[in-house]
């Protein structure tokens, strides 16, 4: 019995150390992200300053917007996409076999007609039924195809596209008008760039007008507020931090710009995975490193897109479940890169980190809590240790979240009102006290589902446009 208690104690210590490790490494990542953000802003300023960059003559972009049953918001989002500040770009809306009036609305509103457009079959996708264009909107194309889900729709869009770069967006993403110019800077700064990710911010609670964000406020619901802090921590600063190490593993499916040729070279998006956005990025890394060719994958903190985050616990749960499955799938597919020196900081730093901290953490965290309770009851540990545990698990996490808010204040400061900062700090506390644990539970289920072989996307319900003024 004594031995058993001793073992329990050691396991608890291990979990304790694990928590400390996770939180401290995130804080470290935050530091590097701060450095990188400062650097990035300086660079983008100098670009604007000079004739170093005339978008008129540089690269052209195809925006790919897959749409499935989006009749409510499709017109609005397409209009917004057509009105970006960029000279040479086209918008390709891919109607992925919608069962509602999405296509009809598009045809009617933009006066579309079927056109004969050659589509090379560079990437596999479900059959394309027709391509539509319009005299009035010469840079708008709509591809009507059989349903095949997002990755498939994107591949179809890539096939139809004729521009140098592709920009994959979600149907509920709102891009800021200068976003394309800003993303392009990364490609101009370094001709070897193959992919660039941008920031995704929480649109809930903000007011929009004429396709542009007018006021940036924190959302009104608890769940969205927590996500606002979360997005700052992991999507804004987390990713910038990885960019510092030149090992960006993931570019959001809501917003990313890729070199078209490169995407085709590696075979486009993968169909049978739910984490197709991350998988593509990792595959790009692998392709170029395998061949020892120069390449860059960047994350820019300036270009911003806004997206509506789920406001219902069940939808959010499904989303996180899906993300976890995607992560597991990608790491498993590319397990050869793990701890492989051939893949540099990607294989030696980023991937193990994601494995240990992102993927396995729900298991360790949740079982840690259970074990803690058991151990306390059995007397394997005492109250003092429980306090230490609490400190490492919750308090350190709070510090991490509050630091993210601080970084936001130091750099972009997009939230105008003092009230919003207060709310963010409050929810930075709350994020770690309840949400983090629930989140771990969702991710644990995701991991289990992955091991069971679940590949579904689940139903995503969309509320009426956040972006209507």
């Amino acid at each position, binding site marked *: 019995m004594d031995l058993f208690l001793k073992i329990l104690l050691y396991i608890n210590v291990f979990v304790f150390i694990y928590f400390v490790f996770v939180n401290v490494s995130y804080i470290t990542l935050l530091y590097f992200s701060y450095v990188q953000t400062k650097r990035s802003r300086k660079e983008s300023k100098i670009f604007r300053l000079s004739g170093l960059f005339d978008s*008129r003559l540089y690269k052209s972009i195809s925006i790919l917007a897959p749409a499935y049953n989006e009749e409510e918001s499709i017109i609005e989002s397409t209009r917004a996409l057509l009105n970006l500040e960029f*000279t040479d770009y086209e918008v390709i809306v891919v109607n992925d076999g919608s069962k509602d009036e999405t296509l009809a609305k598009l045809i009617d509103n933009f006066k579309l007609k079927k056109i004969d457009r050659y589509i090379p079959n560079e990437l596999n996708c479900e059959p394309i039924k027709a391509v539509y264009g319009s005299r009035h909107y*010469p840079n708008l194309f709509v591809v009507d195809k059989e349903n095949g889900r997002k990755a498939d729709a994107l591949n179809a869009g890539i096939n139809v596209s004729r521009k140098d770069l592709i920009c994959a967006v979600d149907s509920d993403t709102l891009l800021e008008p200068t976003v394309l110019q800003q993303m392009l800077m990364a490609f101009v700064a370094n001709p070897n760039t193959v992919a660039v990710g941008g920031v995704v911010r929480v649109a809930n609670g903000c007011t929009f007008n*004429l*396709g542009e964000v007018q006021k940036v406020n924190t959302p009104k619901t608890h769940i969205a507020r927590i996500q606002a802090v979360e997005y700052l921590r992991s999507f804004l600063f987390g990713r910038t931090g990885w960019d510092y190490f030149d090992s960006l593993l993931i570019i959001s499916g809501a917003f990313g710009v890729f070199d078209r040729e490169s995407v085709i070279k590696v075979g486009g998006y993968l169909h049978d995975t739910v984490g197709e956005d991350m998988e593509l990025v990792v595959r790009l890394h692998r392709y170029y490193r395998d061949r020892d060719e120069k390449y860059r994958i960047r994350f820019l903190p300036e270009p911003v897109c806004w997206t509506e985050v789920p406001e219902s616990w069940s939808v959010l749960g499904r989303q996180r479940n899906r993300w976890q499955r995607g992560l597991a799938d990608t790491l498993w597919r590319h397990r050869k890169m793990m701890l492989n020196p051939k893949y540099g900081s990607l294989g030696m730093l980023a991937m193990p980190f994601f494995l240990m901290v992102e993927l396995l953490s729900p298991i360790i965290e949740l079982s840690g809590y259970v074990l803690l309770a058991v151990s306390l009851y059995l007397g394997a540990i005492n109250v003092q240790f429980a306090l230490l545990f609490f400190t490492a698990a919750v308090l350190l996490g709070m510090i991490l979240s509050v630091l993210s808010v601080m970084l936001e204040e130091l750099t972009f400061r997009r939230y105008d009102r003092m009230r919003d900062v207060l709310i963010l700090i409050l929810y930075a506390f709350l994020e770690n006290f309840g949400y983090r644990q629930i989140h771990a539970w969702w991710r644990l289920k995701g991991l289990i589902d992955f091991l069971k072989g679940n590949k579904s996307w689940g139903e995503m319900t969309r509320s009426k446009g956040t972006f209507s003024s």
Partner: protein
Amino acid sequence: MSKERILLVEDEEMTARLILYRLKGLGYDVEHVKDGVSGLEKIKTTKPDLVVLDVMLPGISGFEILQDLEEDEDFDLSLIKVIMLTSKSRAEDVSRGFGLGAMEYVPKPFKMDEFILRLKRVLKS
């Protein structure tokens, strides 16, 4: 002779200032709006003699404004003279502008003197 009324639809701050300064200095009655939607509205309500129209505007583009006016049955686009002033200057954009009814298409970067000359010419025609 009554002053000609000009409407400037331009969201770029300094460009707008410069044009306003010069045109006002020349004695024209100039109004200025900064986005497409207000621009469209102003054109319909005040019916200016001349519109200086940028293409890249928040809301709806200059091209869309012209399209809207063209399709509006209550509105006679031929009564309004339009000069397009914009950084969108590829051949397709230029022909699109003319096709939609613009009388002049001035690409940016532009020379102020030349712009004024063309503007005067359009007003006279």
